[in-house]
């Protein structure tokens, strides 16, 4: 089994928890569209409950921010070997245009480089056409002591057959 296959099998086993294990992602209705080592595609369905400007019906920028953070985090997680969940160090977003009312937003994130504990990720958010982006993001992630300790607790619970 190659290292990438190994990472892929760990990603596949954790995939159901990537949204279900994060209350905020559940509330925003995130959906995983694709997850391979160093690459993540994730969508946020349009919801009237999450509108930022009732007049135009446009989704709040916060939904796009959270979606980009989550997708970038997943790309960094795979890029770092899919063992420890990294924490966001920084997230920079350029808002190119508002997402169109009624359309789902999709974020496609790629881990450009990972090195030891740090991963650099770039992502594009769009509402159907990636060549007409809603926003682009660049982020850095790091495996921290807090995230490692949390992961360790999760492994213990799992090994004892418990649920999170």
């Amino acid at each position, binding site marked *: 089994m190659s290292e990438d296959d190994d990472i892929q099998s760990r990603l596949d086993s954790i995939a159901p928890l990537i949204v279900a294990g*994060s209350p905020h992602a559940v509330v925003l209705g995130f959906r995983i569209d694709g997850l391979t080592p160093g690459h993540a595609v994730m969508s946020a369905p349009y919801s009237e409950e999450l509108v*930022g400007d009732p007049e135009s019906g446009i989704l709040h920028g916060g939904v796009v921010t*959270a979606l980009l953070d989550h997708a970038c985090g997943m790309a960094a997680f795979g890029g770092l070997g899919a063992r420890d969940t990294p924490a966001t160090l920084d997230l920079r977003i350029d*808002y190119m245009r508002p997402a169109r009312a009624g359309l789902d937003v999709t974020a496609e994130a790629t881990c450009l480089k990972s090195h030891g504990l740090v991963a650099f990720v770039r992502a594009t958010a769009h509402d159907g056409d990636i060549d007409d982006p809603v926003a682009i993001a660049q982020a850095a992630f790091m495996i921290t002591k807090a995230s490692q300790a*949390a992961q360790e607790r999760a492994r213990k619970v799992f090994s004892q057959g418990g649920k999170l």
Partner: protein
Amino acid sequence: MSQVLLETLMAAPYVTRFGVRLEMKGTELTGILPFDNDLVGNPLIPALHGGAVGAFLEIVSSGALLASQPMARLPKPIDVAIDYLRPARAQDVYARAIVARSGRRVANVRAEAWQGRTDAPVATFHGHFLITPESTHPAT
């Protein structure tokens, strides 16, 4: 001060959904994001979602801009940069924003979010917003 637009900003479904509030004391505006399990990003730490904290800082920054001068429209974010300094714990989050520069078209805003101690921020924010000051946009 743009009272009507401030109310519009705070009445958006997303903003009310997560219970964001703004409190004005004198000339100082403080944003409050009350803890809610729906804000948790990683229940294992447990830590609030980075996106929720980022969105909160963006709302408080827009609020600070609207509180600082009369505007004809809501500020629109052009770009934002968020530094995450500590995990945001399962507690209320507070934030304050400073308008570093406000021109005729664009404003530069800095903001900080904290939980227990103001000198231990959980995240800092820096963003540019497209603005429409009332003075450059006479009522027609």
